[in-house]
């Protein structure tokens, strides 16, 4: 474990107790309806006609619960609902309970845009937690900018974007990639890399950053780089190619159903991930459910959160999550990032003393969330999060063991110089 591991969990705990106390106080205040909220009269905290009353504030949840992406987005919906429930239990936001309206993007990007418009224009929601793929985010972005909404977007993604109307609670590519490559070079003495990915914007942009970092900064060698159509299920040819070129590190950014096929075939072809170093940035605990722990055991994943993280915040988060959604459920990186959305919004609203989107956007930089399961996060000027990067190693039971975490928070850099 790195020496820089933060200690402020104690203070976090205190803060939690404080919050619980505050919740008790506001619960008493609730006896006289909206008494706490009266410190913040609706006319003052909502000057733009959002769906805010003396007792309630409405937010939107916009994910795919049908279609291909439902596999991935289900976890995010569950996390957001949990966060909202917990915030309400603590007395809500500015004394108002959060009510949510959930819309289904249906894994279809125009539908996302249409539903976003519905949430902003018809329902006048104060903020939206939503989207998963970059394609869906790109589809709703113009809507959020035109109607001035606030989106909390949970997925790790390729970067190259920044908007007043979006808070990116996942990591952008450089945060996720660079620390991992540095680690693998140092720890595994890696010299050669084989880059793999599904053929769309996120893996391609990420591998581009990885290649630049490997070649220009680490001065090492990329011996192969390949992309496969989404849904590709036959990887025997590329596995043979890797047998031939014997890379020190296989760097894999394969997504969706392809992932399962890739790891099963890799294992069947005799690659033992305890001997062959493999690093991925696309396989969370959620994906391992489909892949099967025994097929990826020994592989390394580089992201910001693992369910197994050993800190008090995470322990209470995991147990609350399992209590709400069942024991068998697993929690991946994006699910945790989705959980941050409602909390960050609440903290920002309370900092701004207003639900108005412009004021929330302006108040966002600098907002800290000490109760985050991943530890501590803070919103950067560019609306991304300062967060640590971690390397985990897959266990047979489908969980990751934390192997390494960066000493400091990684600065988000969505437009990295020298990497484009």
């Amino acid at each position: 474990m790195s020496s820089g591991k933060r200690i402020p969990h104690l203070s976090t705990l205190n803060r939690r107790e404080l919050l619980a106390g505050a919740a008790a106080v506001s619960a008493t205040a609730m006896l006289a309806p909206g008494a706490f909220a009266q410190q913040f009269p609706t006319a003052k905290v909502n000057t733009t006609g959002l769906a805010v009353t003396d007792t309630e504030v409405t937010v939107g949840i916009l994910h795919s619960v049908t279609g291909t992406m439902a596999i991935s987005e289900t976890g995010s919906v569950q996390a957001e609902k949990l966060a909202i429930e917990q915030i309400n239990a603590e007395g809500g936001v500015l004394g108002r309970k959060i009510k949510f309206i959930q819309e289904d993007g249906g894994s279809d990007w125009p539908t996302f845009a249409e539903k976003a418009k519905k949430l902003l224009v018809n329902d006048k929601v104060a903020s939206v937690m939503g989207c998963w793929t970059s394609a869906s985010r790109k589809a709703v972005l113009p809507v959020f900018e035109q109607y001035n909404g606030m989106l909390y977007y949970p997925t790790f993604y390729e970067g190259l974007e920044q908007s007043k109307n979006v808070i990116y609670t996942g990591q952008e590519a450089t945060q996720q990639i660079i620390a991992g490559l540095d680690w693998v070079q140092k720890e595994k003495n890696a010299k050669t890399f084989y880059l793999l990915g599904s053929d769309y914007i996120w893996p391609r942009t990420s591998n581009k950053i990885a290649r630049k970092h490997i070649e220009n900064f680490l001065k090492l060698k990329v011996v192969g780089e390949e992309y496969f159509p989404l849904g590709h299920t036959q990887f025997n040819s590329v596995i043979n190619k890797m047998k031939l070129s014997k890379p020190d590190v296989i760097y894999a950014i394969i997504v969706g159903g392809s992932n399962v096929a890739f790891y099963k075939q890799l294992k069947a072809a005799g690659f033992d991930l305890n001997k062959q170093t493999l690093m991925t940035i696309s396989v969370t605990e959620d994906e391992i459910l489909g892949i099967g722990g025994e097929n990826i055991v020994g592989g390394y994943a580089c992201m910001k959160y693992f369910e197994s993280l050993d800190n008090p915040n995470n322990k209470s988060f995991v147990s609350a999550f399992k209590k709400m959604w069942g024991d068998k459920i697993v929690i991946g990186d994006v699910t945790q990032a989705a959980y941050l959305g409602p909390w960050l919004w609440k903290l920002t609203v309370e900092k701004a003393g207003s639900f108005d989107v412009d004021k929330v956007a302006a108040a966002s930089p600098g907002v800290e969330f000490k109760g985050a399961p991943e530890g501590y996060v803070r919103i950067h000027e560019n609306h991304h999060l300062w967060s640590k990067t971690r390397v985990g190693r897959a266990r047979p039971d489908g969980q990751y063991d934390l192997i390494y975490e960066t000493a400091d928070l990684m600065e988000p850099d969505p437009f990295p110089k020298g990497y484009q």
Partner: protein
Amino acid sequence: MFGDYSLAELGSILVMQGFAGLILFSVFLLMALGLAIIFGQMGVINMAHGEFMILGAYMTYLCSHLFETHFPSLYSGYFFFAMAIAFVAACALGLLVEWLLIRHLYARPLDTLLATWGLSLIMQQAFRSTFGAREVGVELPQWMMGSLPVAGSIEVQINGLFVMGLTLLITGIVALLLYKSRWGLQVRAVVSNRTMSGAVGIDTRRIDMLTFGLGCGIAGVAGSAFTMIGSTGPTAGQLYIVDTFLVVVFGGAQSLLGTVASAFTISQSQSTLEFFLTGSMAKVLTLLMVIGLLMLRPQGLFVLKVRR
């Protein structure tokens, strides 16, 4: 790219690459067989073929759990049982669908396309509601994982061998049924002239129903086998449907031999191109080749002579 390698290494890669092509061939053939029977013999375009495969996959998933908790001693052999269950389940559903839906649409082939597509959406959502939106992992008994060292650095995957054996077996059974059994004779008669077959006393309704059921059942077995190499989720069937249609159409819809030949051509070119180029480029070139050949031979590789 071959400069740095010894001859022995190149040789073993060549062998393994050939084997990879053969596995792909078996996979293509196995997934196309059910569709080829239905499409070729009945002219019904079954867009829900992929979902029937996934039904088989989910049956395998259920079986693996059943054996793990109730009959752990028999676990190593559960896969055979699971394939049988997959066949029965997919076949039964196929018969039901034929009776409820397809038989009303025989005169309107294009409408079957729409109806079965709707069916595929319904099945996807049913899987999602039953098994959850997340993918499920199907565990394999130990002996089916890993690879066999053949000689030197040559290794062949056990599950690949398994799929090859299964494909061989099922293709054999289908060929026997089609060309040696009474049912097969009747099917072939119905294909070449439906009205006349009816006139000589063949129950064409029954033949259609059995054909559809068998096609779906084979899809179920294929899905069961693919849990070894692919994912099992509500929409995983979509991963296979394009390749499946490609194989069937390219082969010539009415010919079993055509399906075999087309699966072989497509898989070999795909796997060879993938080795020398990249995954995406291989797909592009394979599709271009198929389109080119279909422009020259619109009926596909093998055409059955049918009096029209």
